[in-house]
Structures are given as structure tokens and as C-alpha cells.
């Protein structure tokens, strides 16, 4: 009886863990999708227009920090949800703010989860 209970607890624990892992994976995948829809054309990889070495957002970060931080957001270790919300909701320099109808706070959390997952790799 006791062994059966322990087995059940172990099974449930593994199941919940897998659920949590699954939820995390979904969240990370969602974050990546939202980032690609709204952010990558400015903050992605690749060449910028007309000879610019990077896309505009990536280049702006590069110019501002001159190598102190990686220009790609997903490679930075100092980008947390508070920073992302502040910049996205208020805009920064020539980047205008984005509205809740475009990216919700939950979307932003998913983006940061994706950043974290990439940084862990």
C-alpha cells in the first residue's frame, strides 16, 4: 500500500514536471514567435539597408554600447522583464511604444523567457 502511494506520488511528480516543461516550451516558442512578428525586422540579425552593417535596432544598440553588451537582445544577460516592459511601453529614442493590443504583458514575459532560453544555450 505504502509502496503504491510512493509510486503514485513519483508518477504525479514526473507528470507535473513534464507539464511544467511543456508549458515552458510552449511559452518559449510563443515568445520567439511574437519576437519574430514584431521585433526581428529591427532587432534581428542580418544586414541593414543601404550598407548599414546591421538592422536598425540592432545597430542602435551596437552604437550605444560599443561592444559592452551584445547588440542582439536575445544574447544579452541584462535584459529582464522590467527593462523590456519599460522600453516597449514607453518607446526609446526613435523606437515608438508598442500597445497592449500588439504585444500583451504576457507576450513580453514569453519573449523574455525565450531570451533566457537562448542565453542558457
Amino acid at each position: 500500500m505504502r509502496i503504491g502511494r510512493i509510486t503514485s506520488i513519483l508518477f504525479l511528480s514526473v507528470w507535473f514536471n513534464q507539464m511544467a516543461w511543456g508549458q515552458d516550451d510552449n511559452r518559449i516558442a510563443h515568445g520567439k514567435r511574437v519576437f519574430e512578428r514584431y521585433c526581428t525586422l529591427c532587432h534581428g540579425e542580418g544586414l541593414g539597408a543601404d550598407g548599414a552593417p546591421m538592422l536598425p535596432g540592432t545597430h542602435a544598440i551596437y552604437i550605444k554600447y560599443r561592444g559592452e553588451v551584445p547588440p542582439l537582445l536575445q544574447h544579452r544577460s541584462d535584459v529582464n522583464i522590467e527593462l523590456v516592459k519599460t522600453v516597449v511601453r514607453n518607446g526609446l529614442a526613435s523606437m515608438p511604444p508598442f500597445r497592449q493590443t500588439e504585444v500583451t504583458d504576457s507576450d513580453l514575459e514569453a519573449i523574455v523567457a525565450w531570451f533566457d532560453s537562448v542565453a542558457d544555450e
Partner: protein
Amino acid sequence: MAVLPPNVSQQQFDTAIDRLKSVVGDEWVFTSDADIHAYRDHFSYIKDEPNELIPCAAVGPDSVEQVQAIVRIANEFQIPLYSISTGKNFAYGGPSPNVRGSLTVDLKRMDRVLEVDDKRNFALVEPGVSYIDLYNYIQERGLKVWIDTPDPGWGSPIGNALDHGIGYTLGPYRDHFSAHCGMEVVLPDGEILRTGMGAMPASDSWQEYKHGFGPDPAGLFGQGNFGIVTKMGFRLMPQPEHWRNGLITVPRRRDFIPMVDTVNYLTDLGMIGEPWYSGGLQALMNNTEFAEAANNFNEEEMDRQALAAGLPSWRVELQFYGSEGTTLANWEYAKELMARNIPGVQFTDGESLPVPLTDEQIQKSSTPYESSMRRNITQGRPGLGIWYMTGRTDFNPNAWNETHIGLFSLVGRSGEAVFKAQRDFADISKRLDMPGFFPNSLAGPVNWYQNSFLMGNGFGAAKGNSPQQKKDATILLRRLLEENAKLGYGDYRAPPILQDDVADQYSFNNNILRRFNEKLKNAIDPNGIISPGRAGIWPEAYADLRGSHRED
């Protein structure tokens, strides 16, 4: 920062907000300062001023039925609405309304691509769909149609078309409003109207025949305030098999006249995409002798120096869509016509590429179309690369250019008209002591709209980014609009703070056009709730606000 709609009490406002929440859900009604911040114009010339055009709140419907319910609540509480699609109309006010305290109807959540047909070549979309979304939808499904995108491409086909925006491929598609075919509109009383064949419920031709039967009111919804557009069809260009470009240069200043005539001929025969004109003598402006000649329109001296420097006076880059054979034939024909009309004309064969172009072909900077930004948009590929012009770069490392406001004025589509406009804009600029880009004899037109030229002027009117400098610039632009209009140059599009001023200049028969629109407005929208003041059309309910953005 919180503001109320005009003539609405806090209690009435709170009740209206509760009603809106019951329609769309609490999470889609935005009243906090933090949320409202994103509905301000990030580049506003009156940011943080008491008259800044900020909304009282925003509401994000997800369906046409919710839009109808919002319109009915607005009528009940007499709250002015301002609808946005993706809200990216920067330089033309962004998401900000015409009336401070309006309720912004944010249609971004209505972002469904309802249909794309690559045999009949059309799309039907909702307002929240961006050019990027529509492009991705087409690419993911391997459909063989192109969109015609503005630059940047994060705006909405509906929003851009309704503000008479433009693109860069073939003429019929570049004029985004004219390329629309069929729309669905929530009228000011909450009823739904469909234009064209959408008026016949069983029709299969909504996106193919825009006129329907009888008068077509679709034009009222472009730069208008007669309803909220919730669906819109667009004609799409079939993906061509081949793209080719070529450069034509002419030696003398006056050669521009036959050059334009010839390009017009090719354009109106549907043989070329957007032609890109530019002056060829900009490099000589560092030479004070040449600069003096150019600024004083001394054509003989300009020609002499151009010849001595071996530079062409004018260039036009042409692009051709079709098959390898037809694009070659059209290019050869363009060369033949130009050679017939202009002694000394020279040609540079460009590239001849199968479509779709690769990223490497887009990035290539060979002549013509050295600009990857331009190559991108000639292929109907939306991007945000143009944002480098305002963003932080090596040339602009510590600041950003907040002063991107100016005029694009309609000019006759001929070389003679461009020459006259150059002189007129230069004279006016001198008279008004305009700072910024000085229009001179090298300024060329843009041929975004197939049948007309636009010429930029008034850019760089602000001497800096301080509030006073922006006020001064706005006053200057108003004077510029007046002076331009005396000579027949009208602006095609404007931010809310200049819309009354632009509308004033369309003054034939004591501004009958505006008076006619306002008669319609008052009849259709008796409470004046739909975007009062847009394009200078003020309903009686808000008529006292006409011109209220003007600085004394």
C-alpha cells in the same frame, strides 16, 4: 495626464468605460496613464504641451459586432472616437486623434487575413493586419501574388490606403486607396455598410468590381470621418517571373523635359514600374561656383559645369516586371524612345533577375538601384530598414532626428512644371527664411502616384527639438502651406496639427468641398462622434475646435 472627452463629466465617462468593458472585456479597455502613453504620437510636435492630442482611453475590439457596440455607446455618451488600425502612421500623427480626449478605437486585434486569391489576384483583410503579416501569410502558403508595401512595412494595408498612402511597384498598385476593391464600414449609427459588390449579399465579385451600382461612397472613408472601416479588399499584383532595371542619364538640364514626357508615355502604357528620378549634379554642390549657379537657376552655367565634370544633369532609374523577354523588349523600347527624343542620352543596363530575388541580390549595391531599401520595396517586401534614417547610427550616435515633418506637394507631371516648382519653392523658402533642406534647381520629383508628381519641401523646418523650436517650425509650415497654395501646390497628406491648414487651401468656391463634406458629416453623424476634425471636416458638435491647434 488623464483627460476627459470634451463636455463629458467624470461620472458619465466612468459609466461609459464600464459599458465598454462589458463589450470587449476588462482587459481590452485602457485607461491608465501607462497604457495611454502608447497611444500618443511618439514624434509629436506638441508632446507634453497642454494641447497634445492624447486620448481619454482606448478600447480594443475583436469583432465587427464589438465595433458596432462601441459606436453606439459613443453616441449615447457623446464621446468622440478615433480609430486606428496598426497605429504606425508616424510623421502623420501616429495613433494620436484630432481631438484631445477622444476615445481611441484600436483595431489591432482584428488582424485576420480573410482571403488571398492568387488566381483572381486579390486579398481581403481586417484593419489590424500589417503589410508584414500579409506578406508572411502569402509566403507561408506559397501564393503567387505580391503586395505593394510602403516603407516602413509595419503599417496596415487598410490604414495606409485610407490615408492615401503609396508604394513602389506598378502604377495601379502603388496608389493604395485606388487599389482597394470593396470595403465594409461601421457607420456612425452602428449600421454596417458594404461598398461595391459587397452590397449584393450573394455576389462573388466584392474584390473584383468596386463600383457596384449607383454612387460609390468609398471615397468618403479615405482621409475621412464617415465610419470605421472593418474590412477592405485589395487588388494584388501577380508575382512576375522576372525583374529588370536600367538607368537613363541625360546631359543637359532641359533634357529633363523630354525625359519626363517619355517616362510618362511608358508609365501610362503599363510598361514600367515606379520610375526614380534624381538630379545628377549633387556632387558639384561643394563647388561654390556651381552652387551659386544652381541656387540661381543659371542653366547655361550649370550645363557648362556638368559637361566639364562629365556628369549627367538628370537620372531616371526604370524597372520592368514580366518575363525575361518582355522586360528586355520594354527596356530596349525605352532606350529607343529616349534616344529618339534626347541627343546625348546614355543608358546603363541594370540587372536582369528571375523573381523572387535572393537576399544577396536585394543587398547588392550595383547601379542602378544601389539602394537595398529601394530594391526591397520594388519587390513588394516589407521591412523596417528605413528606420536607420531616424535611429542611432555612426552619423547620429548620441541623438535622433525628432523633426521629421515636412510637406509633399502636388506638382504637375512634366519637366516644365518641376522647373517652375523648383523656383517657386526656392523663392518661398527664401521669403520665409526656412531652415533645413533648401529646395533648389537639383530637386527632383517622386512619381509614387502614377499620374502625378510630389515634391518634398519644408523638411528640416525645425531648428532643433525644443518645444519652442517645434512651435516655430509648425508656424512656419502653416505659412508654407499658405504660400504654396497661392501657387497651386497642395499637400496630399498631413498630421492632425496641420490638417485644418491643408484643408483651408482647397478653397475653390469658398471651400465648397469642405462645406459639402461637412453637410454630409452632419447628416450621417449628427453627434459628430467619428473622428471629428479629420481632414479638416468638423461636425457641428465640435465646430468650435476648428483651427484650435494653431499657434498664435
